């Protein structure tokens, strides 16, 4: 009986419910110092003087780090290297680090921070993306041309990055169109707000930095820290304690470099933990954006061509992955519907605001919101049913995405049909005091294709251990998924497979817990290693049982001869025999995503060029709107999601429910506002409102299995996508309820009332 497809309990679960799991925020080392960071309180200025001499002599102060200690320039995923750890000559955002102090106590560190003298010469801040890109605006990075990039990307002054897709003949299609529809949409910043803030503890040992940090992507943190410090990559070791939530916010280094520098300077372990306000104010949120769409349609609603321009806010530098994922915006616009002629420009602009970064569903939820609201506009103009317009244009198996990638396994129609079975499409009736609306949205999404390495060894007791650097971010991909895959391959019980702690010194490279990739990428690598271990076991056992390896099977911790149940060997006996014949049983496995054919001539500046292991989704929402208060209630929600193969159905459901509720927050109230001084206004949970148990709608879920030929046992990414279409489907349902479009998020009661009043007035 395989454990794949069953709802095994997570291996880290008992420690978590008992409160004994040690999170990054709990981790300490004996004799550690406490570090604090001095951060800029202005958005733009020249640094005239930074004098730490008074602070150095303050009680308890052990070391102070400044720009001189971190000579490197870097950028997220090493794409555009425009970030120094500390502001050097120029300050570019409120919250930018100026210095860091290690002291015996937090109070001493704070007191010393206050004693650092900073003299500044203010610059005019550029806080708005449109202003940033306007002719004549002050350059935020005057030296932008000198920055190193991983690939050549179109860049120009305050335009940090641009990704383009140009395919077919959009101009001709627009010239012949029955109708042309245009819209513009604006969306806000959304903060990940994991319960655990960023935290790091570093020590300097044998000339190397050893840092414990709750990161989603240990190898990225290792490389980024090394680059900023000017150290050799392998001289940084990253070890991952239990992670208290990430959602993209813990992909990048954040506090680790400060702890590392100060540990080297003091010779003592250094611990640094963000306060909640530091976390909200300086750890990159989902970017605010403007999306403009212009679409040519035929009389029957067939999309003939689409032009799109996305302007996303990079903030002050590229320490988040907004530029790295800029082309994802265009791919998601052109991945769900047949758009034969397209011209998308995805621009990322510098502003004097805190850098933006990855949040689950990178660069996508606002694009899908814009596309779907725009589709409703088209439906209204043509008087076509909204669901019908989508069904007419839906990508079917064998159709091309906008990048020319053929989606052989497209499953959108099945997802839409499944939702239709669960909740037949019918306009809910409004009544006095309650306006009701409905919407349904299909979606194609990506599984992150990054590489993975893993090894699997057999222990003397017949159990197996996976050694890898995959981070358990909470999804259960490590705590259940990859264990289930390896247990299945080796005929073991779930409890007989262990996984090492994520540690860059021991685990092979892994591309991080992002884009639903752990069960997929690490699952593939672990499966590859497990199959080699299986071969070694069978080789040794074949000799012992005097049977051919092809006649053997691995079941219940034993090797059995097929058809002769009495001829079997327990695994410990095989492992012991192997030890002194071929040597200990251990094998390494690797995964690299297969190349996907696409039209390479149609894109520029694209780091993501295609959708690996594409998944297919449909979401339906029904909402109620109170016409007097503007309050929106999501009364019903339905999800059909293709996961390839469900390794652990319960964990998948949990990802869907969690993603939808994060999306509800994004749609209805989460808004990390930037003030007139370029500072984050919502630095606490008092004003940055998160969804509570009462905000979570009832969600009906259908998990669809449409296997991926290169996924482990057919699995595709399952964790990320559920957030992506939520804003779209809820906003379209609200627009349906109030019979007026909504062109900005979030849909607070005030915004909904305003839209209702505008409609009444006009």
């Amino acid at each position: 009986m395989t454990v794949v497809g069953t709802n095994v309990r997570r291996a880290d679960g008992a420690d978590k419910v008992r409160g004994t799991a040690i999170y990054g925020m709990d981790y300490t080392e004996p004799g550690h110092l406490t570090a604090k960071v001095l951060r800029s309180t202005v958005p733009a200025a020249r640094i005239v003087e930074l004098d730490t001499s008074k602070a150095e002599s303050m009680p308890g102060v052990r070391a102070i780090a400044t720009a001189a200690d971190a000579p490197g320039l870097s950028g997220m995923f090493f794409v555009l290297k425009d970030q120094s750890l500390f502001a050097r000559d120029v300050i570019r955002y409120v919250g930018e680090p100026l210095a860091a102090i290690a002291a015996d106590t937090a109070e001493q560190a704070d007191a010393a921070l206050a004693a650092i003298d900073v003299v500044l010469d203010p610059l005019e801040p550029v806080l708005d993306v449109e202003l940033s890109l306007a002719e004549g605006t002050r350059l935020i990075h005057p030296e932008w041309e000198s920055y190193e990039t991983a690939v050549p990307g179109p860049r120009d002054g305050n335009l940090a990055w641009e990704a383009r897709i140009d395919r077919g003949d959009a101009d001709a299609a627009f010239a012949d169109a029955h109708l042309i529809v245009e819209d513009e949409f604006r969306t806000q910043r959304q903060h990940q707000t994991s319960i655990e803030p960023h935290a790091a503890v570093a020590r300097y040992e044998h000339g190397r930095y050893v840092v414990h940090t709750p990161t989603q992507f240990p190898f990225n943190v290792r490389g980024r820290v090394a680059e900023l410090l000017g150290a050799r990559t392998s001289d940084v070791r990253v070890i991952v304690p239990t992670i208290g939530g990430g959602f993209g916010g813990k992909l990048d280094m954040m506090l680790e470099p400060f702890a590392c520098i100060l540990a080297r300077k003091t010779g003592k372990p250094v611990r640094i933990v963000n306060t909640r306000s530091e976390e909200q104010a300086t750890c990159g949120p989902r970017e605010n954006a403007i999306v403009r769409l212009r679409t040519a349609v035929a009389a029957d609603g067939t999309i003939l061509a689409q032009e799109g321009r996305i302007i996303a806010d990079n903030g002050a530098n590229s320490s988040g992955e907004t530029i790295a994922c800029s082309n994802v915006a265009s791919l998601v616009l052109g991945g769900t519907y047949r758009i034969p002629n397209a011209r998308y420009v995805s621009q990322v602009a510098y502003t004097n605001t805190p850098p933006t970064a990855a949040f689950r569903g990178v660069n996508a939820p606002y694009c899908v919101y814009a596309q779907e609201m725009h589709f409703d506009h088209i439906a209204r103009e043509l008087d076509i049913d909204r669901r019908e317009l989508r069904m007419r244009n839906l990508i079917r198996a064998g159709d091309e995405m906008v990048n020319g990638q053929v989606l052989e396994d497209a499953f959108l129609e099945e997802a839409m049909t499944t939702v239709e079975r669960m909740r037949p499409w019918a306009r809910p009736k409004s009544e006095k005091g309650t306006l009701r609306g409905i919407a349904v949205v299909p979606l194609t999404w990506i599984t992150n294709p990054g590489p993975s390495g893993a090894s699997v060894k057999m222990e003397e007791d017949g159990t197996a251990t996976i050694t890898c650097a995959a981070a358990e971010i909470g999804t259960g991909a490590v705590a259940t998924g990859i264990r289930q895959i390896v247990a299945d391959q080796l005929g073991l019980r779930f409890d007989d497979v262990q996984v090492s702690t994520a540690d860059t010194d021991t685990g092979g490279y892994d591309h991080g817990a992002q884009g639903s990739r752990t069960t997929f990428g690490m699952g593939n690598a672990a499966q590859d290693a497990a199959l080699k271990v299986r071969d070694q076991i069978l080789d040794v056992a074949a000799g012992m049982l005097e049977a051919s390896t092809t006649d053997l099977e691995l079941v219940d911790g034993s090797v059995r001869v097929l058809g002769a149940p009495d001829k079997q060997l327990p695994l410990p006996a095989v492992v012991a025999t192997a030890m002194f014949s071929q040597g200990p049983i251990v094998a390494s496995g690797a995964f690299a995503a297969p190349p996907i054919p696409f039209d390479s001539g149609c894109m520029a500046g694209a780091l993501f060029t295609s959708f690996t292991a594409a998944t297919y989704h449909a979401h339906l929402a029904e909402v109620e709107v109170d016409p007097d208060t503007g309050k929106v209630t999501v009364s019903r929600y339905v999800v059909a999601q293709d996961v390839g193969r469900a390794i652990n159905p319960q964990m998948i459901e949990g990802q869907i429910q969690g993603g939808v509720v994060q999306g509800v927050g994004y749609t209805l109230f989460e808004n990390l506002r930037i003030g007139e001084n370029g500072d984050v206004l919502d630095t606490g949970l008092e004003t940055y409102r998160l969804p509570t148990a009462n905000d979570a709608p009832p969600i009906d879920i259908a998990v669809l299995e449409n296997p991926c030929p290169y996924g482990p046992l057919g699995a595709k990414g399952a964790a990320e996508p559920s957030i992506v279409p939520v804003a779209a489907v809820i906003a379209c349902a609200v627009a349906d309820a109030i019979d007026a479009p909504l062109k900005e998020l979030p849909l607070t009661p005030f915004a909904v009332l305003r839209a209702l009043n505008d409609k009444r007035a006009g």
Partner: protein
Amino acid sequence: MSYSFTVNEQSVEIESAGLTSLLSVLRDELGLLGAKLGCGEGRCGACTVLVDGAPAAACLYPVANADGSDVLTVEGLPQGSEQLTPVQDALLAHGGVQCGACIPGVVMTLTALLEQHAHPKDSDVRSALTGNICRCTGYQKIVDAALAAAETNGDPR
């Protein structure tokens, strides 16, 4: 000032300023790391402990107010046994745990709820949980777990 109270049935004497938060006493002085400092302003509930059986946000709770009280943290459950409590067990059985940073607080809130309310409805559970933010699960499986744990209420496991 000196304050005496019990934590997980052990007597403690704490020398501290009265406004020191109970959470910092638990974490920094007593080494009980189960309750988490999520927000420090009583909004997220990751620091929830029981004071005389009632849930309290330990990050805002002055240690002076605990004087003479019985404080129960997640480490006090289940007392002296390897077994999980019905709430802890149900959270795992129903997949209610992801990153788990909120879970010590959730466990305490639900433990208090089931003490007060042997057979709560879905809406009772959600109301009780409004002070506990979970950023991962979307709450449904936590609610499912609470309702299932209530089913076992009063029954020996």
